[in-house]
């Protein structure tokens, strides 16, 4: 009966055949009261009047369910900025989608959370920016945000909906990881995501202020390992390490066009949230094609599937089906070529230069934060 231990299907065997998507991130809006400098939204934010309507979003959810999507992430911007959030949630749940709300908490009231629970919301992922009101609100650029998040966590706990705390870590709060893990437990979370900042969108603009030092990263890795042991069965600790200090790149998105897709507020369908930084690709919207056509047939989704597109050193690398050559958008940003080996890889010809620049940047940090949307 030991064969009863299930495998996680997110890590399916590498095959060229295109599997149906497991997950969809719906960026319902780019509007957000917070202004976090680490935000991964694009620098060119979509205005509110270009957002898909309620009916259009429900149509997209329905197509996603038919296509094989299991997890739907309602995200943003701040999804609570959509007045139809409860209606969208109810529709998604009725389609059988596992519905997750990714929120800053700002814009949610106790009554609204109860309505979301009544609509069948499966899971809430609440961001925190730090463990003290002053520090957290400074990063978020929003006074009172921390206190509101604490209230939201309690309201969510009262409904019984499982809570994940999401903490993006960077130079300015990397010393608080222990505290954030303890805070997550106090708030009744079952899970915390400790994710080191990735340099896309607004975060890229703030690299000089947010890039952690090597010492910070090494300490964070030890802290996470100790917390996993200490809190086993109490809190699941998921960790995204700092890839600038890694030997190999991350398996970005579990491979391009392989596991999930992203729909922007105006309905553009992307393989990942930063994909629009690759100028050679054109992306269709849900008004121009069905999700199925876009997932299986569009040039953009097929651009980096399989391994035929890979140049050396990826092409002959034994890790090419483990990390898929890393992140295409990071290759674009750092190497100027989306097909290039992700420059964080020790086999990239650009790795030495990146290490030099990383050391230099982290030794002379900037104190200036460029707030999102301001």
């Amino acid at each position, binding site marked *: *009966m030991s064969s*009863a231990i299930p495998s996680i*299907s*997110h890590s399916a065997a590498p095959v060229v055949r295109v599997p*149906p998507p497991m997950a969809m991130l719906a960026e319902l809006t780019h509007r957000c009261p917070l202004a976090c400098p680490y935000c991964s939204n694009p620098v060119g934010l979509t205005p509110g009047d270009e957002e898909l309507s309620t009916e259009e979003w429900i149509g997209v959810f329905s197509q996603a369910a038919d296509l094989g999507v299991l997890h739907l992430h309602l995200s943003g911007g701040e999804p609570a900025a959509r007045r139809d959030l409860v209606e969208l949630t109810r529709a998604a749940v009725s389609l059988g989608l596992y519905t997750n709300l990714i929120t800053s908490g700002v814009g949610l009231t106790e009554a609204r959370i109860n309505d979301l629970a009544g609509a069948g919301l*499966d*899971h809430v992922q609440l961001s925190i920016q730090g463990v003290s009101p002053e520090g957290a609100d400074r990063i978020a650029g929003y006074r009172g945000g921390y206190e509101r998040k604490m209230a939201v966590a309690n309201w969510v706990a009262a409904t*019984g909906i499982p809570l994940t705390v999401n903490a993006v870590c960077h130079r300015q709060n990397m010393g608080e990881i222990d505290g954030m893990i303890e805070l997550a437990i106090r708030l009744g979370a079952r899970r915390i995501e400790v994710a080191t900042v990735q340099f896309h969108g607004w975060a890229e603009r703030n690299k000089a202020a947010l890039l952690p030092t090597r010492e910070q990263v090494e300490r964070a890795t030890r802290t996470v390992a100790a917390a996993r042991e200490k809190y086993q069965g*109490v809190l*699941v600790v998921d960790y995204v390490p700092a890839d600038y200090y890694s030997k190999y790149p991350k398996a970005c998105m579990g491979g391009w066009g392989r596991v999930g897709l992203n729909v922007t507020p105006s309905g553009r369908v992307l393989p990942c949230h930063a994909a629009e930084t690759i100028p050679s690709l054109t992306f269709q919207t849900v008004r121009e094609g069905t999700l199925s056509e876009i997932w299986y047939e569009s040039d953009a989704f097929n651009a980096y599937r399989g391994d035929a597109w890979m140049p050396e050193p990826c092409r002959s690398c034994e890790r090419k089906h483990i990390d898929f050559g890393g992140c295409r958008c990071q290759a674009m940003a750092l190497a100027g070529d989306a097909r290039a080996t992700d420059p964080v890889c020790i086999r990239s010809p650009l790795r030495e230069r990146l290490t030099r620049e990383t050391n230099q940047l982290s030794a002379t940090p900037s104190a200036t934060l460029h707030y999102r949307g301001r």
Partner: protein
Amino acid sequence: MNADAPAISGMSVVKLARGVRLHEDPIRGQPVLLAPERAMALDDIAVAIVQALDGKRSLDQIADDFAAKFDAPAAEIAGDVRAFVEELANRRLLEIVA
């Protein structure tokens, strides 16, 4: 702060936590256990165990019921059920009822 995870034993009574559910996936033609950021493909035996976690019977009772139903050694089944349930508990997918 509640930092101690309750240990799983044969006397434990558990059920799936809120936000964890069995889903019949028509596209892939297999049952999956859906949970926060997780989708686990389950085989027939895993499905049978998950369905038996009713929040009423203890793990030993469930194993005894399986042993009678499938005419298999109870001790072996009890060990396998517990190993599977411990894995689910470590991932915070269960509510420990007793």
